[in-house]
């Protein structure tokens, strides 16, 4: 197991290098330098000042040197300084990452908890009313834009009915709450965002679960299990489910980038101070160092998510651990 994990981690290194190169190039292929933008806001600054700034930011050096310098800083988690408020990008990102990770982990949990029983039931009662309703839900879930759903829910439950807060993650009087009260307050704020974040995944994963279960149910060993007189419960939950779950772990791993992508949308809709919102604000302000840091770290989160999925898979299925590759 350990050797498998080590092998996977080594396999990640080229991806990591690729990610940093692409992120670096995306920002540096920009027409005009970031320092020009800084000076646009300050008409008094002369060309001389620009050269000075270029030197400070290292923009007067050749591209590959700039990349290596940036990479060296990157591995020390030094992403430069935000143009907006002069704060280190590292602090800005790291104070916002926990909330994004929290929402996405909770969303994954919701997806996992609900889609698996739904998938199983659709597969066993294939063609039933339940199965057909779920199929309709899946198609709608795929097609409904998340931000639109969020707006409708906000309009209905927050603005009209007043059941949920309209935006943010804490109430104004948050500081006065007890510990438990604080947790309850945040939970109250997060119900709608988590619902919106998980709806697409819920549709997708229950579909895959159904398919996976259908594939398994028709295999010989299931017939054998039935033939030796096991109860239907035991056949489905002991024998079929375990194997049907395997591909789902991969699917959950693959849904990580989609979830993080979604943070951009639902954090903006619900004004949640997470990485997605930070990214959108940075794009409006053309805050290049924040954008670059956010881009690299979002890819890094995806890599970690995929790695965790792979390791879980190998832990559950020995064929992967000892297999050819």
């Amino acid at each position, binding site marked *: 197991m350990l050797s498998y994990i080590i092998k996977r981690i080594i396999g990640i290194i*080229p*991806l990591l290098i*690729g*990610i940093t190169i*692409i*992120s670096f190039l*995306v*920002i540096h*292929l*920009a*027409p005009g330098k970031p320092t020009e933008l800084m000076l646009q806001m300050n008409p008094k600054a002369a060309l001389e000042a620009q050269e000075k700034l270029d030197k400070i930011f290292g923009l007067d050096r050749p591209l590959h040197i700039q990349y290596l310098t940036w990479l060296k800083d990157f591995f020390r988690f030094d992403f430069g300084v935000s143009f907006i408020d002069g704060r280190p990008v590292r602090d800005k990102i790291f104070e916002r990452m926990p909330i994004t990770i929290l929402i996405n982990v909770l969303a994954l949990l919701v997806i996992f908890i609900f889609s698996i029983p739904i998938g199983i039931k659709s597969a066993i009662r294939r063609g039933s009313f339940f199965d057909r309703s779920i199929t309709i839900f899946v*198609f*709608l879930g*795929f*097609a*409904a*834009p*998340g*931000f*639109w759903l969020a*707006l*409708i829910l*906000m*309009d209905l439950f927050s*603005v*009209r009915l007043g059941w949920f807060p309209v935006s943010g993650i804490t109430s104004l009087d948050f500081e006065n709450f007890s510990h438990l009260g604080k947790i309850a307050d945040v939970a109250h704020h997060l119900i709608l965002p988590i619902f919106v974040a998980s709806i697409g995944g819920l549709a997708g994963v229950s579909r895959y679960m159904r398919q996976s279960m259908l594939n398994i149910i028709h295999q010989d060993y299931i017939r054998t299990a039935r033939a030796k007189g096991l109860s239907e419960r035991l056949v489905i939950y002991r024998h079929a489910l375990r194997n049907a779950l395997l591909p789902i772990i991969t699917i959950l791993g693959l849904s990580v*980038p*989609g979830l*993080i*992508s*979604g943070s*951009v*949308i639902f954090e*903006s*809709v619900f004004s949640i101070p997470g990485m*997605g919102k930070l*990214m*959108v604000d*940075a*794009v*409006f302000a*053309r805050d*290049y160092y924040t*954008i*670059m840091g*956010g*881009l690299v770290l*979002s*890819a890094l*989160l*995806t*890599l970690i998510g*995929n790695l965790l999925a792979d390791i879980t898979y190998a832990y559950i299925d020995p064929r992967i651990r000892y297999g050819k590759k």
Partner: protein
Amino acid sequence: MGKNKLAVFGVGVIIILSLAAAFAPFISTHDPAAINIKDALLGPSRQHFLGTDQLGRDIFSRMIYGSRVALSIGLVAVGIAAIIGIVLGSIAGFYGGWIDSLIMRFVDIMLCFPRFFLILSVVAIVGPNIFNVMVIIGLTGWMGVARLIRAEILSLKSRDFISASRALGANNFHIIFRHLIPNGIGPVLVSFVFGVAGAILTEAGLSYLGLGVQPPKASWGNILFEGRAVLGVGWWMILFPGLAILITVLSFNLFGEGLRDIINPRTRE
């Protein structure tokens, strides 16, 4: 059985939408960009079928013109993704070896980026407008196509008819473009249809953030963006464009499912 009817429904909606886009000037009841402050924020009526926005612009007309934006972004973005994906995927599948590893690692790396983060980063640099949005969605959406066509070509290239063609003196170019791609294109075509749906959703999301198609040009996403400011009042600005996106994306997905069943009967249930 019901599935075929659903696919036909999808195609029907797509045709109606294309007609609406093509004949937008004749169908729309008002100038989509005409500002008329005294008619601001009116609900749906006989004058304004789907109401008006904060500036008194007619939502129905804006949505009709918005269908042009949605369809053209869907088609152009998928076209760009298709060209890149097919070229890189078939080169990787056909030549194998280090070329294959190099291209497929590049695909893996691109897939590590959450798509919206990558798109936003590029938008920050090149600026938001309809042309840039099309190109960026295309440039960030070719990886699936590349993987699909590579897999198809890998399974085709050792078949007898390829050896026969080679024996007859065909060069690599001829084999790739006349034999491998035409025979392996089926599943890829299906992915294009789903791709259009995805591109329309992405554009709507970007425009909703205010980083996609810019007003006064109307897009379904930017009507929603403006509707957000009047949440709780102008429900028509939120309900109708969202429904348009939902129905359009649903139709492309249903069409894609139907197409998949035609191309690969094994997936039929």
